């Protein structure tokens, strides 16, 4: 990766601290993501990976106590969750939510039109939308039958995750955050999901791929790998760092950070 190349800054997280119910989870996260880059965030369970994803999306169960997040030149923390979404922040949920009685197709159209309305673009009518949707569905090899079913209701784990990627493909975000999209997927589903993401990679779009395992990164090859431990990014590197982690385990990093910590702070 050529680090020196001039790039547009997409996201800058500076000294981010966040609590849930008075317990500090994020303890000073710093991260810069430029357009066109794929960043992977790895870390042991409970290190704060999902919290970071939820804070970026604007979930109000997490309180930011310190630090700032600049997204495309604006203060992200000032924006409501729906405004963030309309401005191009997308979160692929670890546990996609079921909405009974609301068809997937209807939901997707409502979402797309909300985003288009925000951008002063004309809403798509049902027919144009369906055309667009069918073309996008090829990206995740999704069965058309799912469109008329209620959002995520009775979907298999793989279908839910594919549905997340489909939504990403429809909404065409600028910054896509994938929260453990690989969890609960068999190898075929993993490949389809990863292929979908790879098709969506572009110079204008950035990805933050959160995962516990290196496996996903064989398919979605990151430009950068960051290791989050106890609410801080303690090590950053290129994709080889993921392999090293896979071999040596998180305890290797944890031991390292204990010794490095005083120096860092």
């Amino acid at each position, binding site marked *: 990766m050529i680090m020196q190349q001039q790039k547009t800054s997409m996201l800058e997280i500076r000294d981010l601290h966040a609590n849930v119910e008075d317990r500090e989870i994020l303890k000073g996260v710093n991260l810069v993501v430029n357009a066109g880059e794929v960043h992977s965030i790895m870390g042991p369970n409970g290190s704060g990976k999902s919290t970071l994803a939820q804070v970026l999306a604007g979930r109000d169960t997490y309180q930011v106590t310190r630090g700032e997040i600049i997204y495309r030149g604006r203060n992200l923390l000032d924006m409501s969750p729906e405004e963030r979404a309309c401005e191009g922040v997308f979160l692929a949920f670890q546990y996609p939510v079921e909405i009974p009685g609301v068809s997937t197709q209807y939901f997707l159209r*409502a979402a797309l039109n909300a985003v288009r309305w925000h951008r002063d673009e004309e809403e798509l009518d049902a027919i144009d939308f369906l055309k667009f949707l069918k073309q996008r569905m090829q990206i995740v090899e999704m069965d058309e039958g799912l469109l008329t079913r209620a959002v995520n209701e009775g979907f298999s784990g793989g279908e839910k995750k594919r549905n997340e990627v489909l939504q990403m493909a429809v909404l065409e975000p600028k910054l896509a955050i994938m929260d453990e999209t690989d969890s609960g997927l068999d190898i075929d589903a993993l490949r389809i999901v990863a292929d979908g993401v790879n098709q969506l990679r572009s110079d204008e779009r950035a990805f933050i791929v959160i995962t516990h395992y290196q496996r996903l990164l064989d398919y979605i090859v990151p430009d950068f790998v960051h290791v989050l431990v106890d609410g801080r990014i303690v090590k950053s590197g290129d994709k080889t760092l993921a392999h090293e982690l896979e071999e040596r385990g998180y305890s290797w990093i944890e031991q390292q950070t204990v010794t490095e910590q005083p120096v860092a702070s």
Partner: protein
Amino acid sequence: MTVSSTIDDWTNQEYRHGFVTDIEADSAPPGLNEDIIRLISAKKGEPDWLLAWRLKAYRHWLTLEEPAWSNVDYPPIDYQKIVYYSAPKQAKQPGSLDEIDPKLLETYEKLGIPLAEQKRLTGVAVDAVFDSVSVATTFKDKLAELGIIFCPFSEAVQDHPDLVRKYLGSVVPYSDNYFVTLNSAVFTDGSFVYIPKGVQCPMDLSTYFRINAASTGQFERTLIIADEGAHVSYLEGCTAPMRDENQLHAAVVELVALDDAGIKYSTIQNWYPGDADGKGGIYNFVTKRGKCLGRNSHISWTQVETGSAITWKYPSCLLIGDNSVGEFYSVALTKGRQQADTGTKMIHIGRNTRSTIVSKGISAGYGQNTYRGLVKINKGAANARNYTQCDSMLLGDKCGAHTFPYIEVQNNTAKMEHEATTSKIGEDQLFYCNQRGIKTEDAVNMIVNGFCKEVFRELPMEFAVEAQKLLEVSLEGSVG
């Protein structure tokens, strides 16, 4: 935006139909006695047999106690303070729409029910009931060409006494329950429908009930008869002004379906629900029952209940004819201090009778929502089938949902299915929608509409749109 703040704002939403029409009324003095009943009967120029029937009901009512078994709570009603007859004063009985007081026409325009037929784009015939009288019925002549009778009840008494006498009280006897007995004594107007043999009514028929005068009770009666092979879709809408005192609405609806006949009865009930603290609002005590008298007959009730301080109604089906079918689809929404105790009774008497019950209760604010239903399979009802689905949705944590399903089976060939769920609109669902760019208010609408979908799709097209809009209005202002 969190669920709790969304829900808190619910109670502050505006009631859109709360205006009062300033029109001179010809009203009876408040109070109930035999003289009042004679006065109502005389105003309507009724035959002696009907007055005798009213008086019989009244004398029976005096022996009854107001029922207390339902899951609703309200202070005692003073029946002597209610005005039992109130009619807008008009110089003479209008012969056509041109002769109707413009204020009345304006009222219905405001409510979105333009009575002038030429303005109507849609094929719906309307009977407009204002307090105690019907003020206009549209498309009457056109329907008459097919032999369809669609007119105010009091007119039917004059013009079709044999039909009225034959069927009045044949489904809901005057002694059925406290409120029915009261209604039988003092009922004023309502709609009468007769569809002759083999006729498919070409347009939806509807009645729009409006309570306007203060302290007035509305006691209407609707009677619909579908003769052999006849089919009709009937719609009913209701609104009232915002007033601080509670007003009583005690209606009776009787449906009769003969061999191979079908009646689809849809209601959008949006009586004034009272304010956020529970002051004012309509007490809605209604008895609705359909008799599937003929073989292969079909009666379907669909209701969207969003108004009234108290709702107490159980649209029911007596499945007498072999192979007859009864259906009940309901959405009941309670918010603020509203209370609803609603459901159905499906009484299987004939062979191969089938019934379907789909009930969706939505509670918000301090609303209390009760589903109460009875499915009864009589001894002779071989191969009866029932499917019941009862879902409750809670918005917020101060409201309540209650379910009382009663099942009595006396024939072991019966097949019964019962499903029930209770869910809460979750922060998770709202956040998921928000993360896709959808505003909280729109997300709540989407989730609630999704929850009600199985019922909405039973409504006639235009009514379904109105029902959705009504829920959306109820949800309006939910994002602060």
